[in-house]
């Protein structure tokens, strides 16, 4: 069984977001980059399934060489091999088209629900469409039972269980599992695991980010005396007009 996990590298969740070049680019200086939290879940569950069924997990990342530390982290968690496609990621469609070029032949492909920087949430569906295989997004359970993939996925206002025979793509939602923390042996082993660098094939373009902006700052908080809390309800009705 061969499982491919697509990983992205994102700013740490505590990052205060700011922009440079007249708000046309994300300010990366001083920012710490991490493995996307949802991808950690995808990888952990992929590893558990591969271990239980005698399989192998490969991770793939579209990005430049500065993301190799994060790729090594994925290897230290237990992936056997890594592929880096040497292109700066600019858009979900560009990334998906590069991934599709190498993603054929796997039994299961996993992504995160979304990357926490640009929040596209599109790679799972784009990759499924490009490979002409089913895509199942926001999954909270993945099992492999008698040759069939079985999933729980979030739907609006509930949950559903689905199954698929044959290769498919799924995106990991919170609750799938607890992320695995690399141990010392894993970290040592990761140093010598194969990391193959491939050049991009498609150079697809997709959308262009032209301008960034921060939300308008709040005007300041209006405090209400805790013994007069009912006052809040009338302010929300008559002043803010949201009730």
């Amino acid at each position, binding site marked *: 069984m061969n499982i491919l996990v697509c990983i992205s590298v994102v700013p740490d*969740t*505590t990052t*205060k977001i700011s922009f440079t070049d007249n708000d046309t680019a994300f300010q990366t200086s001083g920012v710490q980059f991490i493995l996307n939290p949802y991808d950690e879940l995808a990888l952990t569950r992929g590893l558990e399934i591969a271990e239980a069924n005698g399989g192998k997990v490969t991770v793939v990342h579209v990005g430049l060489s500065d993301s190799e530390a994060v790729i090594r982290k994925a290897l230290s968690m237990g992936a056997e091999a890594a592929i880096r496609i040497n292109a700066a990621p600019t858009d979900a*469609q560009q990334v*998906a088209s590069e991934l599709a070029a190498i993603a054929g032949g796997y039994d299961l492909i996993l992504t995160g629900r979304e990357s*926490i*920087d*640009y*929040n*596209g*949430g*599109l*790679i799972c*569906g*784009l990759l*499924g*469409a490009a490979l002409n295989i*089913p*895509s*199942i*997004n*926001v999954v*909270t359970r993945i099992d492999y039972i008698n040759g069939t993939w079985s999933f729980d996925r979030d*739907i*609006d*206002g*509930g*949950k*559903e*269980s*689905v*199954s*698929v*025979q044959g290769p*498919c793509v799924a995106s990991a939602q919170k*609750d799938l599992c607890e992320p695995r923390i690399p141990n010392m042996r894993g970290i040592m082993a990761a140093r010598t695991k194969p990391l193959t660098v491939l050049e991009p094939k498609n150079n697809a373009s997709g*959308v*262009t*980010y*032209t*301008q*960034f*902006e*921060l*939300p308008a700052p*709040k*005007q300041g*908080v*209006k405090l*209400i*005396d*805790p013994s007069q*809390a*009912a006052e*809040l*309800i009338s*302010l*929300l009705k008559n002043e*803010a007009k*949201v009730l």
Partner: protein
Amino acid sequence: MSLVVFIEFADGVYKKSSLEALSMARSLAESTQQKVVAVQLNGPCDSQILGQHGAHKVLHNGSDLGAFAADSWGKALAQMCQETQAEVVIISNTYSGKSLAPRVAHELKADMASQVVSMPETSNGFRVKRSVFSGKAFAWVQLTSPIKVLALTPNSFPIQTWNESASLETTQVSASSTIQVESVQKVSGKIPLTEAEIVVSGGRGMKGPEHWGMIETLANQLGAATACSKPVSDMGWRPHSEHVGQTGITIKPNLYIAVGISGAIQHLAGVSSSKVIVAINKDPEAPFFKAADYGIVGDAFEVLPQLIEASK
């Protein structure tokens, strides 16, 4: 040439977010002179409602596609978009919408943007505003392909009505999926969090799941959905589907009431697009007060009963 809106029909009604998308498409069409086509893939069709909310024409699929699956529905929707010569396809940024949108975009060789939060700018090319960094910022993106696919975040555009009716056309499009839906469990009688206009949310300051009755009572009285912070769902006090923030759901209700939540940067990321924010916290230094419009520095267990009483 047309603006196509994908209409979600579930549990016997049109989704509010689909009517928002329809209203936005019609408002856009007023300046671009395009026709708005509402495309409905399942269920019975009420072209009157769709016409009132902005559709010039309704294209209804008369054949049964079976349970929702991104691959088959994506193919069917793409085919119907081609039939009406769609230039822009608008889908709600719901779980199902977001699984459908990329499959449709691939079929139509379209550029696409998800998490769109306002009407596209068409005066100089085609640009849309989307939320990025889990709500910590916004970005303008340019789409250049002949057909464009947008996933519109719920509560981004108000529902509007027009005193008009739409023409109805029925078509027969079929597609099959290898995804087998085994079972569906819906939480009944609850307002979906992403679509809710009012949200009452509790954090670790609520001390334990046994105190959520107060949050739920207040929410019920206000017609609100309930939400929580990450540690609250991590500890199993509340289901993970209620977890909002950078690693949970991003929401943008008109009113967000945070009770006993400190206001960590990861939490604020998911809720800062709310129009009005209320923070209730006994710690005057809680960061949430910096992000709030109204605040009460006080004990949740004394404040909540007063709010419940006042909103009866």
